[in-house]
């Protein structure tokens, strides 16, 4: 049977989805270039940019020295003067070295300059924990950068959203932090062959349910899917919302769900204190105070630096068991 391109599907992993997004946007717009440590000759520390140097050459796929402050700032300057850089951090933990450039320049420039200079730049790379990489390579950065007006923060959970959102991010005229997960680069999914975009700032309802709303982003929605299955066995219908964009937060989709289920559990890979869950819960009580039958619960990383040992690493992070326990407590 002949399949039209519009309906053709491909089974690819997350890194290939990201690579396709980069490749399509570089084809579409010659102002787009990729810069970062090991992105070119090494083919990417996690192989997201595999083959891109061969295809696009060293003008548009650029290896940098280990100099995050320098190349993050350089990217911002390039964005202010008409280019559209995609800057890869090998780990978002290394963005802290470049924090001044992101915090004091990228996200403030458009407003501070009286609309004169916009900063269309994407910072992308793996965020949060991988496998036993210990405290200095495992931090989730979204809560830290979430406190900055002017910054867009995206954290997709699957290949479809990753591709569509990265394309939207590159076309956006604002600085975007695009948070990936090292643990998900190999996750496979069937996605369309034809071009598509996923809008920034729109959460998705991954699973429909009526009893409790479960909200997560980044790597967590995949873990929450297991929770949904398990709870279904126990007769609880969970509505699972993937925020997809952390900031701006799509509180409308969350609130609509909470008004239906009257119960809410928030999940976050990052730390508890002043986390994304804290903000989401506050906005839920602003919008849904009369609809809640129980306090909003949250499952986050515990307040420890990430330990190295497998058993301790597991203990500090959200788990299926902890999420189930939180749901059961909220419904009790």
């Amino acid at each position, binding site marked *: 049977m002949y399949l039209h391109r519009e309906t053709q599907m491909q089974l690819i992993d997350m890194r290939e989805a990201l690579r396709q997004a980069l490749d399509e946007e570089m084809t579409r717009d010659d102002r787009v270039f990729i810069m970062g440590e090991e992105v070119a000759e090494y083919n990417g520390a996690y192989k997201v940019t595999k083959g891109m140097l061969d295809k696009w050459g060293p003008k548009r796929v650029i290896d940098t020295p280990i100099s995050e*402050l*320098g190349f993050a700032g350089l990217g911002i*300057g390039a964005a202010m*003067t008409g280019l559209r850089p995609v800057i890869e951090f090998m780990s978002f933990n290394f963005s802290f070295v470049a924090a001044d450039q992101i915090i004091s320049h990228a996200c403030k420039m458009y407003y501070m300059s*009286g609309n004169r200079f916009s900063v269309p730049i994407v910072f992308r790379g793996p965020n949060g924990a991988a496998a036993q990489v210990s405290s200095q390579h495992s931090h989730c950065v979204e809560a830290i950068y979430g406190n900055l007006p002017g910054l867009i923060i995206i954290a997709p959970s699957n290949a479809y959203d990753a591709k569509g959102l990265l394309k939207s991010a590159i076309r956006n005229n604002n600085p975007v932090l695009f948070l990936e997960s090292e643990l998900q680069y190999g996750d496979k999914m069937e996605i369309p062959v034809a071009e598509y975009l996923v809008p920034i700032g729109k959460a998705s309802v991954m699973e429909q349910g009526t009893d409790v709303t479960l909200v997560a982003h980044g790597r967590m929605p995949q873990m929450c899917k297991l929770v949904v299955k398990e709870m279904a066995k126990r007769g609880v219908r969970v509505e699972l919302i993937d925020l997809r964009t952390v900031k701006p937060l799509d509180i409308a989709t969350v609130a609509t769900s909470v008004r239906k289920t009257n119960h809410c559990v928030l999940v976050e890979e990052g730390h508890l204190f002043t986390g994304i869950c804290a903000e989401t819960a506050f906005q839920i009580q602003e919008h849904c105070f009369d609809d809640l039958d129980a306090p909003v619960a949250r499952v986050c990383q515990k307040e420890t630096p990430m330990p190295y040992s497998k058993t301790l690493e597991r203990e500090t992070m959200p788990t299926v068991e902890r999420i189930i326990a939180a749901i059961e407590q909220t419904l009790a």
Partner: protein
Amino acid sequence: MQFQTCRPYRQRPPVVVDLPGCIGYNEYKMAEKTKTHSHAISLDEALTLGKKLGKKVLLENLRQMLLIRNFEIRAESAYQHGKVGGFFHSYIGQEALQTALLQVLGPDHWYITTYRCHALALLLGATPNELMAELYGRATGNAKGRGGSMHFFTERLLGGFGIVGGQIPIATGAAFSLKYRNIKDELAVCFLGDGAVAQGAFHESLNLAALWSLPCLYIIENNMWGMGTSVERAISVPRLAEDKAPGYGMKGYTLDGMDFFTCYAGFEKIAQEVLKHQRPVLVEVITERFRGHSISDPALYRSKDELKACMERDPIILMVTVLKELGYLDDAVFEQMDKQEKDLVVAAMKYADESPWPDPITLEEDVFAP
């Protein structure tokens, strides 16, 4: 005319600048011998250069310097009257170097500077009205009242930046853009203070610019003080450009920033070099701010004698001396020019004062670009 008699250069070693035919190599040899610091071209060279530039150009540059001086003086008084708030860093004393650079390059390049940004905005065509209105926090201000004294912008001025050294990577990115687009007749000009040389951003930027051959002209305005810390107490080498640049495979130059003609001659050569070779260059321009670090700083760390000595080399007075020598200017014309610029700035204060405040309803507009 006192080009050669600068004050002793504190404890710093004498400086020998190898820039033959540009800024008077012999003077540096002399400076070395006498343990004084001098970066000036000779009066004869200044007169020759002055004749080459001509009366019209020189008077226009003097007018620019008088505009900057008058703008800063009036803005300071507006600050004292409570019309201006926040931080305020005066450019008084440093006018010659940016004026000379703009005369050399013209406005069609990327420019970027520190929080001491009033002069560069004026030189790049921002009006006294819009800048004063910005200081007054009004809707008609240069950045709609959102930036204030430290954040002025023009079409080619990427900003005054408030974090010491923060603008250096941004300038490097502007130079990267030029190279990416294969634009060979423009460059990026990055002004930074002596204090910024201690920042990591300085090191990373120069490494990247030299590594990738980016057309960036980095100009250290060494006004001797990072707030109240003298440069000798902050930087490990005496010559900020000439000692640092070789470590990045770059050329480094030193100029006397108080003298328009020295700056013009030096920048003309250096800018041509950056454009021709498409390589970054590091320049140290020795200058003096006549005020404290900011308006709230009485500069008690600097003795009255020191200040008096540096004010004897007021860049406006030095320029006027040469212009008189050339017969291009007399006291009456100077006073008339000064008054004209003063009137312009006083009118800008009136404009700012009468301008509307930003409507609070606009507060949350433009956080994101469309």
